């Protein structure tokens, strides 16, 4: 009997994959490569690193896939592996990040001058085309501190629930909400000062601080 793999659950595909079914692995890869790659790409800001991380995730799945309990979200399971891989590689390369606990915490007051005054009736993005607007948002996300960026990526770009995002990060749900709120405030500030010509310049990642 031929199984319709495209309608098979992730847990069942994983079971078949661990039993050596190549088609099951191919289906899992096809289903999850893009979310994993996008998450790694936007979290790290590096195409090369995102490729390495995507490879890491699926090699880990081959080796340790039996550790997935099947009860939790498969997306959260894969993105947890991806997140660890990104952080490990960034730490090793020390290109963008140092894993120090001197980052902005949820108790730190937000900087002055946040765009309460920048939000006019139409908003700062009103005069931009759609592609300019998304480019502005992309650059603003890339400029966020890492612990805010990952929450934005998980909750908005990956559409995880707060519970799943908390599982990936290993924190409380309240922390996810608090960081998401703060990330949006910082984004709004960044967008308020965005000019379309900035899109032509290469994205320069500022050294991110990561609060563990």
């Amino acid at each position, binding site marked *: 009997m031929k199984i319709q793999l495209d309608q098979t659950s992730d847990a069942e595909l994983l079971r078949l994959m661990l039993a050596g079914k190549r088609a099951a692995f191919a289906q899992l890869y096809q289903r999850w490569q893009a979310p994993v790659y996008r998450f790694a790409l936007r979290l790290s800001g590096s195409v090369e690193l995102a*490729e390495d991380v995507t490879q890491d995730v699926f090699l880990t799945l081959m080796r340790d896939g039996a550790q997935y309990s099947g009860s939790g979200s498969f997306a959260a399971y894969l993105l947890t592996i991806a997140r660890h891989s990104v952080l490990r590689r960034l730490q090793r390369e020390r290109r963008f990040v140092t894993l120090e606990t001197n980052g902005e915490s949820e108790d730190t007051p937000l900087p002055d001058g946040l765009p309460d005054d920048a939000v006019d009736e139409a908003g700062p993005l009103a005069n931009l085309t759609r592609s300019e607007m998304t480019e502005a948002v992309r650059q603003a996300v890339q400029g966020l501190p890492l612990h805010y960026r990952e929450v934005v990526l998980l909750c908005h770009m990956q559409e995880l629930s707060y519970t799943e995002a908390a599982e990936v990060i290993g924190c409380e749900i309240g922390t996810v909400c608090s960081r998401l709120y703060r990330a949006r405030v910082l984004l709004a500030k960044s967008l308020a000062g965005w000019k379309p010509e900035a899109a032509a310049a290469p994205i320069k990642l500022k050294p991110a601080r990561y609060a563990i």
Partner: protein
Amino acid sequence: MNCPEFDKLIVSLACDTLASGSLRAQALAHAATCARCGARLAQQQMAAEGLDALAAQEQSIQAPAHLGAALLAEFERQRMLAAPQDAPSEPIRFRLVSLLNWRWATAITAVLFVVGLTAVLWRQPVRQTSPVQEEIATTVTPLPVNTSTNNETKMVAKISPKPKRKKTARHNADEYGALISLLPIVPSEAEEFQQVVSMQIPRSTLRLWGLPLDEESDNEQIRAKVYFSEDGVARAIRLHN
């Protein structure tokens, strides 16, 4: 509701986790009449809408195709390695080849090769190729790492055949076709090592690796020698003639 009370609720309001409908209504009513608090809520909505628009635009971003081909090849390789111990109902325990094992294997192969070659030369002064030498007859030619973001690929090394050597009775090099380079893969951090595995591979897998085969007889098995790099990924292949 006043501004300090609104400030206490804005995180849960913005994240839509405010359990109390009554509090939510009061907070929204306050935001509608207070410019400061209304602007804070509008900020959140604007950022959320921008993020959702970006998410929609980025839905089309996929991992590069060569990653999938390399991972499928790796899956196939591990399945082949695990096959002898394979029990139908038991999950396969995949084994990643460690650098240490490779070093031992290479050292042992080198010693055996030297001993064998010495014995052959001592008995018969005619130059011959040993089976071991034939099996690992590849050279690794390093290429510069391509850091261009345009093609988003990295070439680390390519395997090229050594100059033609004499045939032996046991290993006829012409049984297999020319060496075909598979897709580029992520470089390993360590020195390059290789392994050659003779295996039977379905045509469908070969097509996934990018070889130009038609879709007919996808289940047909083809004999091939697959050349793996130290990081365990298929780099090149020679099909049986």
